[in-house]
């Protein structure tokens, strides 16, 4: 264990150094005009402002997590027909991926929030509009990731499963997906990070997440540099935590099949 804790400390030190460097680059040349009091934890007003900004964290997390869960499910359901022998099933996969992938996320958010209710005659709140747009957009990428992962499974695995008399569902559930999931975890982690960042776009329809809160702060206090710097730090911390989680999961799942 001493080795790994040393390594962890070295990694942590590297992160700290990186942060310091980033900050000094960001803040160099404007030392005279900095007004950190707006977000200073030392003052009453600063604390209130900080708490206001952090209040968006809940929605950013909730939005991204809901969206990624839905997008993984849709992605899988779109990927499976892409692996079929049936040309219509494969066609559906291609059309879905190509169309959804081609729509810019911001445009999709606006379309879902302002357009979809008119088309379907429903009302949709900002949260679910954001979830639907993010999940749809991401599902096309997830579908490609899953398709690649499933295709990478050795033919022999399928033949062994066939020769045991297992059907399609059992084969997917017990043989193919558990192995494919392990392989696609790194790109899936990528998508999760991407999703967290892209959730900032949902601020344009008024979702009270991190970016929206920061924007409101800027309007109120008129200190964009300080506020957006704090916003960057918020995303940074969030994403470092998520990547650490993904790497932990990767280690846990790959422990068994050491080769």
């Amino acid at each position: 264990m001493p080795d790994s804790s040393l390594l962890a400390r070295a990694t942590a030190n590297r992160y700290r150094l990186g942060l310091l460097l980033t900050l000094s680059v960001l803040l160099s040349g404007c030392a005279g005009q900095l007004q950190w009091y707006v977000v200073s934890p030392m003052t009453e007003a600063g604390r209130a402002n900080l708490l206001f900004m952090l209040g968006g964290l809940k929605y950013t997390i909730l939005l991204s997590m809901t969206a990624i869960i839905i997008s993984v499910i849709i992605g899988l359901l779109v990927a499976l027909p892409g692996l079929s022998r049936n040309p219509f099933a494969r066609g559906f996969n291609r059309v879905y991926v190509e169309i959804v992938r081609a729509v810019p996320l911001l445009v999709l958010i606006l379309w879902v929030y302002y357009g979809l209710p008119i088309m379907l005659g429903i009302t949709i709140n900002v949260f679910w509009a954001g979830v639907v747009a993010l999940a749809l957009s991401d599902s096309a990428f997830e579908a490609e990731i899953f398709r690649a992962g499933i295709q990478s499974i050795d033919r022999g695995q399928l033949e062994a499963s066939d020769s045991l008399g297992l059907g399609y569902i059992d084969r997917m559930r017990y043989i193919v997906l558990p192995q494919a999931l392990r392989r696609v975890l790194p790109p899936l982690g990528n998508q999760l990070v991407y999703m967290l960042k892209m959730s900032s776009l949902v601020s344009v329809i008024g979702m009270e997440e991190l970016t929206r809160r920061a924007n409101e702060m800027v309007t109120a206090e008129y200190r964009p540099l300080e506020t957006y710097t704090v916003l960057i730090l918020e995303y940074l911390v969030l994403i470092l935590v998520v990547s650490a989680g993904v790497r932990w999961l990767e280690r846990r799942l790959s422990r068994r099949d050491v080769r």
Partner: protein
Amino acid sequence: MSSPVIQIKNLSKYYGGFQALSGVSLEVVSGERMVICGPSGSGKSTLIRCVNQLERHDGGQVIVNGIELGKSRKALREARTHIGMVFQQFNLFPHLSVLENLTLGPMRARKLSRQKAESLARHYLERVRIPEQADKYPAQLSGGQQQRVAIARSLCMEPAIMLFDEPTSALDPEMISEVLDVMIELADTGMTMMVVTHEMGFARKVADTMVFMDKGLIVEKSDPAKFFSSPESERGRLFLQQILQH
């Protein structure tokens, strides 16, 4: 000898323009041990893979236990639970423990309870002489052990016939005999076996019938004593010469 477990009638198979099987007919009766040999590309693997339809045939019939395969998907799945298959590359499931590899088929395809499946698994691990490896993962075992697990996995389905597709070809030389020993023991229990192999010593010891194939055709089918001493065909004689030279 009793009724045929497998009947193959005039089977043909194409890969694009290449004809891998050109009208092969064969019968395997219950309890029979058939060894199929021949040069590479002769169609012996294709033939054995057609028996459980890992390859779909293009012409002719495969009939297992009286049911013709290739008509209905459900019948095929049912038939496959009665046909064990051992591959050259083992094809164990790397993410499952040895025990899980063995219980998956019985539990999902034969609908046995976990308890029943596990006791079956432990019984057959005993038979292939690695009961102590039940909780390991395939990657932690040697090639010979992996192939024995694969044999046990097929046996757990309690099949009517076992197919072996070059079961020792991917093994290091020192591990071949541990796998062959298990196969010989299996033959002694009266299991019906169809074996594609280059191990002529094994063939001599256990085979009731030798089948020699070349260019997608059965060139010769006889009992091993006759095949090894005086093969009928010139090609068979040449093949034996090449394979037994060393």
